[in-house]
């Protein structure tokens, strides 16, 4: 019996007429690193926002530790989220607080720990991301890569079971990206955290993933281990991996449609 931390069933979501997610069914195994991949606009951010309970789906259920977050009330959601950590695309550090206060916030709000103990815990978390000694700086005074690492330290401040990463490599140089990837890998291997990573960086996905889920046009196109995805026969997956402009993923309509749209009177 495999232990699933998240079970997603028949998830639908539309914005207006546009169907973003269409009948998603997937399980996330505890303690693994799962990468959700797909091109821009395939619905992966929407999927993530539904998983963390920021967005309500039109239909379907999301069971996290057997609690349906679609139906959960405010108190349940707060309890659940204490076991979450999340690294935002733009880090989303609180700009009015110092780095140390950012990491300490959840501890101060959710626990009755002594300020002295919190200070030590903040030091430990910052040490884990290689940033001890930076507690007193404001987010505006550190670089983008450092912000990402502080964001990571903040995400793991409460020792969560489950950490979400939204485009952890976005806007970083390859070296910093590799450092972040290594951190994600270490955290899940050493601390047994389940990591859910949304990204479109193939390289980093192959480095960290235990399982890759490929989203395409609101559906799960393919899921499997890194090798299974690499050897997939699916032309869409292959186009994505090789990153070529030619293939089934079309950014523009066919020539005929384009001609029609240009000549059509509005």
């Amino acid at each position, binding site marked *: 019996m495999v232990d699933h931390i998240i079970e997603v069933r028949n998830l639908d979501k539309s914005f207006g007429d546009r169907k973003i997610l269409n009948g998603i069914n997937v399980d996330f195994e505890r303690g693994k690193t799962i990468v959700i991949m797909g091109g821009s606009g395939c619905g992966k951010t929407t999927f993530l926002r539904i998983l*963390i309970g*920021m967005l309500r789906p039109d239909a379907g259920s999301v069971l996290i530790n057997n609690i349906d977050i679609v139906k959960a009330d*405010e108190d349940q*959601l*707060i*309890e*659940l*989220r*204490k076991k*979450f950590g*999340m690294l*935002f*695309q*733009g880090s*989303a*550090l*609180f*700009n*009015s607080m110092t780095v140390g206060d950012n990491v300490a*916030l*959840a501890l101060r*709000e*959710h626990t009755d720990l002594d300020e002295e103990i919190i200070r030590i815990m903040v030091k430990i978390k910052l040490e884990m991301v290689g940033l001890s000694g930076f507690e007193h700086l404001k987010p505006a005074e550190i670089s983008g890569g450092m912000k990402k690492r502080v964001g990571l330290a903040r995400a793991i401040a409460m020792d969560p079971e489950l950490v*979400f990463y939204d485009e952890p490599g976005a806007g970083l140089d390859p070296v910093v990206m590799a450092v972040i990837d290594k951190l994600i890998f270490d955290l899940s291997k050493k601390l047994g955290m389940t990591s859910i990573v949304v990204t479109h960086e193939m390289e980093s996905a192959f480095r960290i993933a235990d399982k890759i889920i490929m989203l395409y046009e609101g559906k799960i196109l393919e899921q499997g281990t890194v090798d299974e995805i690499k050897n997939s026969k699916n032309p869409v997956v292959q186009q994505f991996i090789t990153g070529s402009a030619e293939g089934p993923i079309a950014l523009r309509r066919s020539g005929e449609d384009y001609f029609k749209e240009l000549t059509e009177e509005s």
Partner: protein
Amino acid sequence: MEFAIRALEHIGKNARVFLSHLSSLYSLMVSNFYWTFIAPFKKGQKGLSREHVSYQCVFMGNKSISIVFLVSLFMGMIMAMQTAYLLKKFGVVMYVGSLVAVSMCRELGPLLTAIVIAGRAGAAITAELGTMKVAEEIDALEVMGINPVRYLVVPRILALVIMLPCLTMFADLVGIYGGYLIGHYSINIPTGLYIQKTIDALVLKDIWTGLLKSFVFALIIGFIGCYEGLIVKGGAEGVGKATTISVVASITLIIFADCVLTSLFYFVFV
């Protein structure tokens, strides 16, 4: 015909947008009420952070006091001159003190303070929350299991509700003093007589109706400011727009509420 239909459609659409804003604003108020009065007393819940409230109090109150001082001092002086102009015609110029005191306490103190604070604190609230919203900081709070209403809205509203009446009392005093400056040094009313007339004219009701008004104004500034900040969309431009809307809407609503409250005190609770 077609024009009429299109006009109706337009009105309907705007009305729907307006109503949906109204209902979200209402739910913000309900949630604020819950996190202020109910949640802190529940078991296992963290109470209100006294630190946050006092920080906001200092920001809104202490740092606005100089501008409130200037505005109400000038207003008191203006009122003294304007009323003296009329009272001279009737030969009862010593009543300047009474008129200044009553109009400052009942009307101008609360109103001017509220307008100053709407421009200062209301705009600051919207800009700050709006920037946080744009930078995903509010999402981050929510994902950490920290309710943004509890953490951001409640301390600001509480601070306004505490500080605005305090500032209003201060403005009343300063306004009366401003009136005295003109009354004594320019119109030559003796100090004793001026004070006598001021005390004779003022009744307790003048003061508490003014403070009640400022309490309502504080709620208006706080809720409009927070709401506009929390619904910001679209980057820096959105923050700018929301800040403008916040100030304009709160000042308009303040004057409207003032009209309603004044008529209540005038006609109903005489």
